[in-house]
């Protein structure tokens, strides 16, 4: 256990709270255990047996926070523990701390700047201004192909040409993910933030989708320091029918092992205000602040010894 990390974490949490207090963003708490879970095909929830039936540990406080937005809570943030099954490694711990916030009337571009402001406070050695780069530009720069147009064969040939040892078939998006993690992310500068935006529409989750240069892209960004992904922000999709469509499609893909959050969907029918929202991984931010490279060094007791 790293005692210095305990102190750094406490002071980081305090800086987060001061940052939002100054901006009049309200701190909220929502349930960690819910009757419905996250239906995202690539995120797995833990379930807990309770006398009232199965409940799911939240993988992010997104749904209940959006219900609060519908209720008129205004700008809100939450600093809480979240859980994701089977995510364990140098930069993953199945239990981790998330900072999530929503800004009414913000565009995703405004939100990126607010994220940068906060991260420059939390990671004081960051000197250079952030870099903003579209998903397409990042791929063109590093692997010389257009991720939106490349076919499965072209993507797999590109992976092979870059010496990635992988055998098997995958859908186009998984090949993009492979190239992103193995070739694109390692090129991000280690001395400034990189904001990657305009993901393929297949990666939109609950973000709005726009046509840009003939491609349907998600108004969504991820923020990195070097290859370390720190957070994920959206122009939130406010159309309730669209939200329902995505959740139901995801549940179909998963084989209905997780119930769709009907309370969330019902709330959206009352009208989610126009907003942008973002979730940041606090443990990774702490790791970057302390210039360490393994999450275990900043978590009091990691998954293996918890």
């Amino acid at each position, binding site marked *: 256990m790293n005692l210095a990390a305990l102190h750094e974490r406490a002071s980081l949490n305090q800086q987060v709270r001061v940052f939002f207090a100054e901006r009049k963003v309200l701190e909220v708490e929502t349930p960690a255990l819910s009757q419905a879970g996250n239906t995202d095909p690539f995120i797995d929830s833990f379930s807990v047996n309770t006398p009232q039936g199965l409940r799911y540990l939240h993988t992010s406080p997104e749904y209940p926070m959006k219900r609060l937005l519908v209720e008129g809570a205004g700008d809100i943030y939450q600093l809480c523990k979240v859980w994701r099954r089977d995510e364990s490694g140098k930069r993953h711990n199945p239990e981790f701390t998330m900072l999530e916030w929503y800004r009414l009337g913000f565009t995703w571009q405004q939100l990126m700047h607010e994220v940068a402001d906060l991260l420059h406070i939390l990671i004081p050695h960051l000197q250079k201004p952030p870099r903003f780069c579209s998903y397409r530009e990042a791929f063109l720069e590093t692997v010389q192909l257009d991720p939106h147009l490349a076919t499965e064969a072209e993507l797999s040939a590109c992976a092979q040409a870059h010496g*990635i*040892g992988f055998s098997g078939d995958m859908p186009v998006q998984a090949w*993009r993910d492979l190239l992103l993690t193995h070739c694109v992310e390692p090129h991000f500068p280690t001395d400034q933030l990189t904001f990657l935006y305009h993901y393929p529409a297949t990666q939109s989750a609950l973000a709005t989708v726009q046509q840009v240069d003939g491609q349907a892209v998600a108004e969504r960004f991820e923020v990195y320091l070097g290859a370390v992904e720190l957070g994920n922000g959206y122009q939130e999709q406010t159309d309730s029918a669209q939200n329902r469509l995505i959740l139901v499609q995801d549940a179909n893909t998963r084989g209905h092992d997780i119930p769709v959050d009907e309370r969330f969907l019902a709330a959206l029918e009352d009208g989610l205000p126009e907003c942008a929202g973002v979730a940041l991984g606090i443990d990774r931010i702490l790791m970057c602040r302390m210039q360490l490279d393994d999450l275990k060094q900043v978590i009091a007791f990691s998954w293996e010894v918890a």
Partner: protein
Amino acid sequence: MATYGSNDLRVGVKIILNGDPYTVVDSDFVKPGKGQAFTRARVRNLKTGRTIEQTFKSTETHEGADVEDRDMEYLYTDGENWTFMDSSSFEQLEAGATAMADAVKWLKGNEKCVVTLWNGVPLQVTTPNFAELKITQTDPGVRGDTATGGTKPATLETGAVVKVPLYMEEGEILKIDTRTGEYVSRVKA
């Protein structure tokens, strides 16, 4: 045999990949925000010793390799095969030249070796870290010359050739580090 999910590919886990047994040297979990999760591993081929990087989908499963390390005593060779004995069960088995590789240079008999077996067949033989062997041939040295640090080749009783200090003579016994093939010290007879 055990099967492993990609998340179980921790250091030391042995799996079959393209028909060969591999051991995991290092692994990490990678996942883009909303996308496919992967396990990125460095794995060493237990037959060739070559290390490669391999990425697996997190949902894949892998067949475990039935690899076992056994403490065995080296008995003798007929020139093609090398015979080892399990000191507790007295079971004997033969390793071929490929499994022996460099190990043959350090064995004269009765050494305790580690024999790595795959499906019961020797894959690799690891000798003790140090061997004590007699010089059978070396050019006459320069007596008293201990300061210049020069070396000359010497042939040992097992046929191995090592570099030794100039003052060493035929009949002397040396301690050799078998991992590097380097002379360590003279052993008093």
